[in-house]
């Protein structure tokens, strides 16, 4: 469809049902109590511009102090009691069941709300975990017996010490008995639970695996024992707060945990499947305020009816607490994860483009918010009241329209900005740099041609690939060819620029050796239209590998490379993106020279954070310059040893670029993954030279931002570029009371340059509910978004705080949120019961996954680069990506129905769910594993690999052979479906059960104890429960 010339098109005019309900909400804006907001609340005036005035500081009771600390610091400092189980906070919301009163229900007429009612009804069974046996035990069964009580009360039991005795092989029987006959035998997990008390007894318990069906090879268990022993020690160390009682108390739970059936604790898979069952495949209309969207894992069609699609914005909660006291009490972060350029499936309507010509967008005079459905037209349409600041503005003459009988403009459905949550404006010259229309962006390819890259064939690979991939440069839909210009630089310790002007017979190479003060040696002919210069470019790409074939240069520079690209864009006066293909630590004498500082001794000390900080501030100021000139840096790293990702990755991160890392790149293994990433990255939808501004209605404001962004002041989020996979997480804080009737409104405006060189504004609007009932708040939470927020805030804090503190804060906050619910919202129950709100049922398991992420694990075994890499990845992830990243998808392939196109139902990430007769596919967005049980069905092996038996499978392959057989076809289709939605190409690793590579695979079984420490789901749940109990007491 054409984006130009907006006329009333079917999707709008048909979509009344929800919208019809909304006007009453807006009526509240006229409420005199809101008319005069305090002057200090005025929004800054500049277009997306000026810094917030001082009056924007929080006015709530919370001291300004916490703001100065890292995100986690803020939580911790703001709520000191949380760390020590002190007296529970006084609950101002008196009746904990109040939220479920019918009066509130009426405002949720959507089917979803009825679902929530039913879920609420089943709260007691799903949430009370003190039931053993099958996961979905019916309610009312109650605690099965005395053994459970001590577990949750954390009382030490006398027999425990005996478990720790080395010779206590006789002891396991009680656990097995407790598991009950119905439970499937889960030997490995049981063993690990046994091992919890300490390293010593582990071996002893492992040696005789007496359980039926256990076929563990003898060579296998010592291996496990050896690695698990010390890891548990690490696991304990990492949760001192979680196990405040020390070893004596610790000794208590393990034995009892054995009685805890993993099936009985909340299952992420179950939650995902439930949501999918109730909301999957339906149309989700964003017509009402504060409705909770389906989970990210659920496929549905989203129809924009006045609020931004959840693809663009997801919130941690869709109902904000009315007061900051309440917010503090619940400790639920108020945040939105915004993915302004999210890809929209083809069956949803793309964004409409509004063009007001020279007049430009209509904006509120005071807060500069853009015209949106939250503006209330009054006085017969002559004026309108801003929903954000309540200022009454005159309607500009060109924009005037009469109102209908319900006070709505007659053109309501004809103008996207009046009826839609998301739309785009054509920006006028006022919104351009120097008031000049921008030039189309440029892509510059910068290839490290040092010895190793030449030798391993990487340079040749890149050059070959560029020839085809440049054919697919992104372009505006209506354009014939891409407006993007391309340029090429190669470098080792000097830089080579290439003149590829179309009229040249041969490309010209210009060497810049002055890396100390790098500059652009040519203007004309560096950035060219690919189509025009195609032959010269091909000539160049053919020659580059040969040109450096006999180069022995091992040293490289890095900062000057970025500098050069940035200067080139600056000289050409256009925004753009640098694609840097780099492989080594830049040790050549130049700015940004790095030393190998990978000091494992720092791990687990207060100085560990240094490893995540850049080595020099060169990169920081470089990033600043890049952002100022709209230069986005995407880095493809091919390290064979430590390259200091923390330093090298800084510029890509701050400029909205992407970092790709291929450890020990090997042509035959990794080229496919790399080429997919490269293609994908080049073809991505992307906006350049962007400034994002979040405006909110009065009473709260955006205080903290996480993502691939750069901020010069507290309000303008600057991004050299933002693509469809990048999300910015925004945290909100109260600075006044919120009113239930007017709700909380958020407008996200992104001013950017399109790939065609047009300046545009992309507006996303979202309205949230406000409530003075805590239960409303808990009901509207979204765990996936919460985890996204927690991950980003924790990973940001990694730079400033010891990891131990961060882990403590995360555990404490989890406990606090749940305790608050328990105290204020849940029906009274035994103190030993762990009660989780429906919306946070899987918070503990996800939180545990986050805590087990290698970034937060202080383990010297994990490469520093890998930790820095993952830290950076997560910082820009959207909700769907972070969900998968922290809780991988594990699909049983052996149960595949080759006739159906649907993915098999996922299973929980635990070794106990694997079976040696099965084949399982695991994906987390970065990696993909195909795990083959030793007794995998031969027909499947034959079908997938086209080899006669398990033993014949070659695990070196990274793609499955194309076998003309339904198994193979379906499996490959599944892999491509999983891959399709993900920003990073996943490298497929074939893992055979009981072979060495399985260790890597096991790290992703996140419900189990981590290979490098980190407790199992069950253990963590116990730990959280204990915390909650302490908080409640």
């Amino acid at each position, binding site marked *: 469809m054409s984006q130009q010339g907006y006329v009333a098109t079917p999707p709008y005019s048909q979509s009344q049902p929800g919208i019809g309900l909304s006007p009453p909400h807006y009526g509240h804006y006229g409420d005199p109590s809101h008319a005069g907001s305090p002057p200090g609340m005025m929004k800054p005036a500049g277009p997306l511009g000026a810094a917030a005035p001082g009056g924007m500081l929080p006015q709530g009771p919370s001291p300004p102090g916490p703001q100065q600390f890292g995100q986690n610091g803020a939580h911790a400092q703001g709520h000191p009691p949380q760390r020590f189980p002190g007296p529970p906070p006084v609950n101002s919301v008196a009746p904990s069941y109040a939220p479920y009163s019918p009066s509130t229900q009426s405002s949720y007429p959507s089917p979803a709300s009825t679902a929530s009612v039913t879920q609420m009804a089943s709260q007691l069974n799903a949430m009370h975990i003190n039931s053993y046996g099958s996961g979905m035990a019916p309610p009312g069964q109650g605690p099965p017996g005395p053994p459970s009580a001590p577990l949750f009360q954390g009382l030490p039991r006398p027999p425990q010490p005996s478990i720790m005795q080395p010779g206590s092989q006789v002891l396991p029987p009680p656990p097995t008995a407790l598991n009950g006959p119905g439970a499937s035998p889960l030997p490995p997990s049981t063993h690990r639970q046994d091992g919890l008390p300490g390293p010593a007894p582990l071996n002893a318990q492992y040696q005789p695996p007496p359980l039926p069906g256990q076929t563990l090879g003898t060579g296998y268990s010592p291996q496990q024992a050896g690695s698990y022993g010390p890891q548990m020690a690490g696991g304990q160390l990492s949760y001192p707060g979680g196990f405040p009682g020390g070893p004596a108390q610790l000794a208590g739970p393990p034995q009892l945990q054995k009685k805890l059936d993993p099936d009985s604790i909340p299952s992420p898979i179950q939650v995902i499947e439930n949501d999918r069952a109730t909301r999957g495949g339906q149309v989700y209309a964003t017509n009402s305020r504060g409705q909770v969207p389906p989970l990210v894992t659920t496929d549905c069609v989203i129809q924009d009816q006045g609020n931004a699609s959840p693809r663009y914005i997801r919130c941690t909660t869709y109902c904000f607490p009315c007061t900051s006291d309440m917010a503090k009490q619940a400790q639920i972060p108020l945040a939105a994860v915004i993915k302004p350029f999210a890809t929209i499936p083809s069956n949803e309507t793309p964004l409409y483009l509004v063009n007001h010509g020279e007049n430009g967008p209509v904006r509120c005079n005071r807060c500069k918010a853009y015209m949106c459905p939250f503006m209330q037209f009054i006085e017969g349409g002559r004026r309108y009241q801003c929903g954000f600041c309540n200022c009454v503005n005159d309607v500009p003459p060109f924009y005037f329209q009469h109102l209908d009988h319900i006070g709505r403009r007659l053109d309501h459905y004809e103008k996207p900005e009046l009826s839609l949550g998301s739309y785009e404006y054509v920006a006028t010259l006022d919104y351009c740099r120097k008031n000049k229309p921008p030039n189309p962006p440029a892509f510059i390819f910068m290839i490290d041609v040092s010895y190793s890259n030449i030798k391993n064939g990487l340079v040749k690979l890149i050059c070959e690939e560029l020839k085809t991939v440049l054919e697919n440069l992104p372009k505006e839909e209506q354009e014939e060819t891409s407006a993007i210009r391309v340029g090429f630089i190669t470098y080792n310790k000097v830089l080579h620029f290439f003149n590829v002007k179309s009229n*040249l017979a041969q490309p010209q*190479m*210009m*060497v810049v*050796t002055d890396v100390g003060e790098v500059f652009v040696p*040519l*203007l004309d002919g560096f950035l060219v239209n690919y189509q025009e210069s195609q032959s010269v470019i091909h000539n160049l790409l053919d*020659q580059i590998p040969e040109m450096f074939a006999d180069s022995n240069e091992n040293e490289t520079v890095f900062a000057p490379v970025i500098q050069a690209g940035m200067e080139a864009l600056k000289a050409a006066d256009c925004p753009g993106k640098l694609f840097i293909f780099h492989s080594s630590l830049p040790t050549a004498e130049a700015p940004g020279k790095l030393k190998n500082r990978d000091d494992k001794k720092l791990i687990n000390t207060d100085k560990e954070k240094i490893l995540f900080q850049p080595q020099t501030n060169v990169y920081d100021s470089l990033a600043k310059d890049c952002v100022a000139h709209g230069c986005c840096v995407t880095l493809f790293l091919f390290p064979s040893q430590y390259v200091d990702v923390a330093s090298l990755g800084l510029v890509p991160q701050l400029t909205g670029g992407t970092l790709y890392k291929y450890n020990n790149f090997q042509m035959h293994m990794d080229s496919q993954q790399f080429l997919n990433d490269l293609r994908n990255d080049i073809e991505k939808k992307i906006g350049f030279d962007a400034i994002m501004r979040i405006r909110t209605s009065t009473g709260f404001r955006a205080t903290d931002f996480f993502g691939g962004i750069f901020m010069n002041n507290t309000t303008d989020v600057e991004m050299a570029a933002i693509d469809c996979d990048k999300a910015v997480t925004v945290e909100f804080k109260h600075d006044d009371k919120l009113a239930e009737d007017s709700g909380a409104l958020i407008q996200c405006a992104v001013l950017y340059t399109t790939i065609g060189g047009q300046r545009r504004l992309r507006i996303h609007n979202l309205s949230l509910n406000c409530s003075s009932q805590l239960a409303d708040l808990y009901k509207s939470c979204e765990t996936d978004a919460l985890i996204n927020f927690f991950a980003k805030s924790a990973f940001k804090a990694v730079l400033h705080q010891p990891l131990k503190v961060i882990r403590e804060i995360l555990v404490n906050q989890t406990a606090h949120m749940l305790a608050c619910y328990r105290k204020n919202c849940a029906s009274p129950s035994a103190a030993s019961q762990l009660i989780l709100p429906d919306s946070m049922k899987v918070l503990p398991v996800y939180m545990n996954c986050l805590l087990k992420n290698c970034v937060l694990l202080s383990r010297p075994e994990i490469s520093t680069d890998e930790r820095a890499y993952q830290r950076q990845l997560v910082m820009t992830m959207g909700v769907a990506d972070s969900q998968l990243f922290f809780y991988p998808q594990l699909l049983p392939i052996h149960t595949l129905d080759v006739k159906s196109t649907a993915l098999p139902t996922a299973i929980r990430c635990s070794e106990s769910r694997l079976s040696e007769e099965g084949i399982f596919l695991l994906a987390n967005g970065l990696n993909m594993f195909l795990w083959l049980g030793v007794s995998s069905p031969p027909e499947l092996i034959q079908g997938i690999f086209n080899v006669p038996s398990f033993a014949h499978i070659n695990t070196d392959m990274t793609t499955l052979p194309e076998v003309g057989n339904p198994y193979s076809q379906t499996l490959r289709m599944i892999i491509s479906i999983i891959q399709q939605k993900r920003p990073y190409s996943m490298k497929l690793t074939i893992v055979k059960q009981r072979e060495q590579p399985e260790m890597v695979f096991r790290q992703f079984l996140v419900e189990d104890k981590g290979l490098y420490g980190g407790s199992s789901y069950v253990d963590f749940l116990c730990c959280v429960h204990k915390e909650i109990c302490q908080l409640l007491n």
Partner: protein
Amino acid sequence: MATYLEFIQQNEERDGVRFSWNVWPSSRLEATRMVVPLACLLTPLKERPDLPPVQYEPVLCSRTTCKAILNPLCQVDYRAKLWACNFCFQRNQFPPAYTGISEVNQPAELMPQFSTIEYVIQRGAQSPLIFLYVVDTCLEEDDLQALKESLQMSLSLLPPDALVGLITFGRMVQVHELSCEGISKSYVFRGTKDLTAKQIQDMLGLTKPAMPMQQARPGQPHEQPFVSSRFLQPVHKIDMNLTDLLGELQRDPWPVTQGKRPLRSTGVALSIAVGLLEGTFPNTGARIMLFTGGPPTQGPGMVVGDELKVPIRSWHDIEKDNARFMKKATKHYEMLANRTATNGHCIDIYACALDQTGLLEMKCCANLTGGHMVMGDSFNTSLFKQTFQRIFSKDFNGDFRMAFGATLEVKTSRELKVAGAIGPCVSLNVKGPCVSENELGVGGTSQWKICGLDPTSTLGIYFEVVNQHNAPVPQGGRGAIQFVTQYQHSSTQRRIRVTTIARNWADAQSQLRHIEAAFDQEAAAVLMARLGVFRAESEEGPDVLRWLDRQLIRLCQKFGQYNKEDPTSFRLSDSFSLYPQFMFHLRRSPFLQVFNNSPDESSYYRHHFARQDLTQSLIMIQPILYSYSFHGPPEPVLLDSSSILAERILLMDTFFQIVIYLGETIAQWRKAGYQDMPEYENFKHLLQAPLDDAQEILQARFPMPRYINTEHGGSQARFLLSKVNPSQTHNNLYAWGQETGAPILTDDVSLQVFMDHLKKLAVSSAC
């Protein structure tokens, strides 16, 4: 040897030497009273078709402080096989190879006709010549095109094994790598950042291979070219490549906005050129040829900013100390020039632009290294094209008329010391027994380096007589001077040319007439002029004129014949008669007068004045005027306004300009078209004659002069009018109406007035 004139001429032809005095006053005191110092113009490589070089090495005096070369003036004991050095009187054994000598079997160097002899040194590696083009790309399209063609043409003129390199500059400086095939590759430098030689070599990647080189050096200096082979390649290998490269040269692509000059990084480009050769080819013959079409506008060595509204400095600005970049730029180029000179390379400057190009600041590059300086309006003129072509002209042997890396050593007999030299040279700071404490020109040394020289390069060398007044006329009655010039011939051979001369001593009191008769007024005028111009470079113009005037008056007082206080009685002998006239024209010349000349022009004129031989220098001082008329064959006429007559065609040669001037009547005839009528063919011939003569001069001269064809009343006639002696001006109207020439509208004094004053002052006892 009938007259001194013949003697002088003979000596010049044989030795390339002209002395101011050909009989030398025998004491210091007397010498100073002679006013004109004892000095000579030496043309070290004067073309001598009759002088075949000898293929062996010279025999040196064994005294370490002397090391004079065996010459015809030495006393030889043929039986004892001994020779006595005529400078230090050391008795030396002949080397074994000379055992066969006798009175009848003399080696060439002992024969009197070989007072100048050239030795070819066979030792040492021969390294090819190097030509490094440094090309400005901030030119107009047609200028650049013309320059490209000239450069491409020059490739065919270079010796095939010569190494050639290319640096282009504009806003950036590009050093082109010539060895690569396929992609053309260049190293680019920022035009604003000065770099040390070390940095340049690092950045060009020249240092790494050089390290092991130095260790391995004694054995194999041949590998040295390998080091920089990427940038300097034998012409025969890459001439196609380079021709293409030059063909593809584009104008500097950086946009130049209205009201701005293009950014031109001449300073850095030169610095890189110097640094490139410095690291790779020290002490081998190399020419850095800078082609520039405008002033340096950025970086070190910038002469003017890029704002067009700020004009480039004029003499007026310099006098008022308003030239804000001049000192810094001059310092930059001086530093470069000195480094270049140290390495034995030379820098040519070819500056073609309508406005100034900063020659004032850059002049030292050519002056100190013996490079050429050519100034023109455009590269698209025959002036540039032919001048440039002439650089590669060949002599009778088919060798290029250029030599490199020369050192000139002067040895004197005891009564003399050398006070200094003026010419395209730098001091090597070699102190020795024959170095005078008084400096004239570049002094304090007995050796000078001349990095680039050609057969006409001429140095003025100044001596001091140190014999005491009461000491007898020195033994033997003759003073001797030996000039030893070691240089790299264009065929890459090392050669040594030795010129040994001797002159008689005379007691100035008793034999003043002898001395007077042996005065070479032409040489003296040029030598004094060189001193004056040398001073003018550092002193204020009027001071220099006053100094020249005083010297002239003193000379007249010393050698004139007159009665005290009676100007009319003043007479000068024949050997002095022209000298005052030379001085008159010198005073008016652009070498000393900056009025009406830009600083660049002054630098250009002075550059050529300091290196041309005597004849050319004299033309520069006093231009030659020929007259063509129906009244007889062409004849030289006085450089006087009275020579400008209506029925004459005048041809003036000022060295820098050739002016053909048609008198009023001739011009009218030509306008009427008589030359096309068969019956007036003689008129046609008359018109043609000066053109042919001019062509002859144009053919031979380097640099090619500006050719001006004008007529009475033409605007270009000013070139003639400004040179002639203004004997008739608007002030002495008595000549009006008479057929005696054209009045010059000037307040300048005429020669007559000048002479009147001179006589008056000379006879006055007040001075």
